[in-house]
């Protein structure tokens, strides 16, 4: 059995509670400090959900703007990140609903994989991995937004079941069953794309 995935500590510290309290009283500098702490994590989730750098940028900024607007309702002593993660996930769902379509297959990972090309790489291996990544992306894009979100939170953001439950507002048992169904569906799509049986 695999243990919980490695992840950053998201328990609220004294310092963070002080920052939240200051932000709640209107201190913009304290809120900027909160932004600095969580900007990478929020961008990571935003990109995993949209697979588009421009949309991810918009979504990450909008997440913090919404957080500033609702910081007065945030309960002191609670971890900040699941709350931010929930905002970014809801904004992504709204974006998908607004566009009435799934996110487009982005260019950035292909460029990233191109940058990873080294002199010691085997061209055949590199080509095979690029092809596999493209198929995986296409298979992921074929999933429902809920399955995409739960896989992104688990695989990309390394969130625990409890954190995913907090983020999506569903019970832990539902998280586990939905995650299992999402993986099965992804494998099925992947099998369809590769021509293999799942």
């Amino acid at each position, binding site marked *: *059995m*695999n243990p919980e*995935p490695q992840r950053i500590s998201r328990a609220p510290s004294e310092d963070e509670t002080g920052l939240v309290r200051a932000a709640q009283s209107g201190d*913009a500098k304290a*809120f*900027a400090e909160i*932004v*600095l702490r969580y*900007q*990478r994590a929020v*961008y*990571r989730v935003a*990109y*995993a959900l949209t*697979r588009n*750098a421009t949309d*991810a*940028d918009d979504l*990450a*900024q909008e997440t*913090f*703007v919404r957080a*500033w607007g609702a910081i007065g309702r945030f309960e002191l002593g609670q971890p900040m990140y699941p709350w931010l993660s929930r905002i970014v996930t809801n904004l992504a769902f709204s974006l998908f609903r607004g566009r009435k379509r799934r996110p487009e297959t*982005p260019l*950035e*990972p292909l460029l*990233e994989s191109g940058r990873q090309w080294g002199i010691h790489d085997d061209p055949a291996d590199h080509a095979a991995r690029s092809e*596999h*990544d493209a198929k*995986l*992306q296409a298979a*992921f894009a074929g999933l429902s937004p809920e399955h995409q979100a739960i*896989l*992104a939170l*688990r*695989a*990309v953001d390394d969130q625990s079941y409890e954190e995913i439950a907090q983020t999506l507002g569903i019970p832990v048992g539902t998280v586990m069953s939905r995650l299992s169904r999402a*993986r099965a569906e*992804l*494998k099925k799509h992947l099998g369809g794309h590769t021509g293999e049986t799942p």
Partner: protein
Amino acid sequence: MKPEDDELDADLKRVLSHDPGEGYFRDFASRVTDRIAADARAEAARAEAARTPWWRGLLSSPRALAAVGGVAVVAVAAGIAFNVMRHPADALRTAGLRGRAPAEAEAPAAGAVARETSPGTPALFAGRAARGRDAGPGVGCPRRRGAHDHGCWTRRTGAHAGGARRRVGRRRAGAERARTSACANA
């Protein structure tokens, strides 16, 4: 969790991750605070607009002002038209129209009298003579004593006529006199 799921998650993490670079995150917080400030300004402007009375908005832009003026003109014109249609007598308020209305009403009776009293007058001139437009001396242009003795009061408008009208009146009176005497001789 199955090992193949671990492998799948690792592949997903590689495919769904993107590093925009250190420069992107360096000014990310300032972009967020700028956006918050812009939103706050927009919200304040909306609140200010909500506080001002609705009619102030109509006067704030030239286009709204022109629209309000147009509506006012149409409303006033419609009111005048309605008033005239409802009370036609009131439309005769001008001095000229008011002066003409009794003269038009008296015209048939006076014509009948003229036909009875001067049988020698041709029928063609009887109506005009009765209306007094080209009547003879002492009829069309009665003399008035006192301060306005030098002038001539027209029957049609009641206004004081100048020298030009007086000259025209004299010419017409002379012509009429000649026609009348010709008829009498005949």
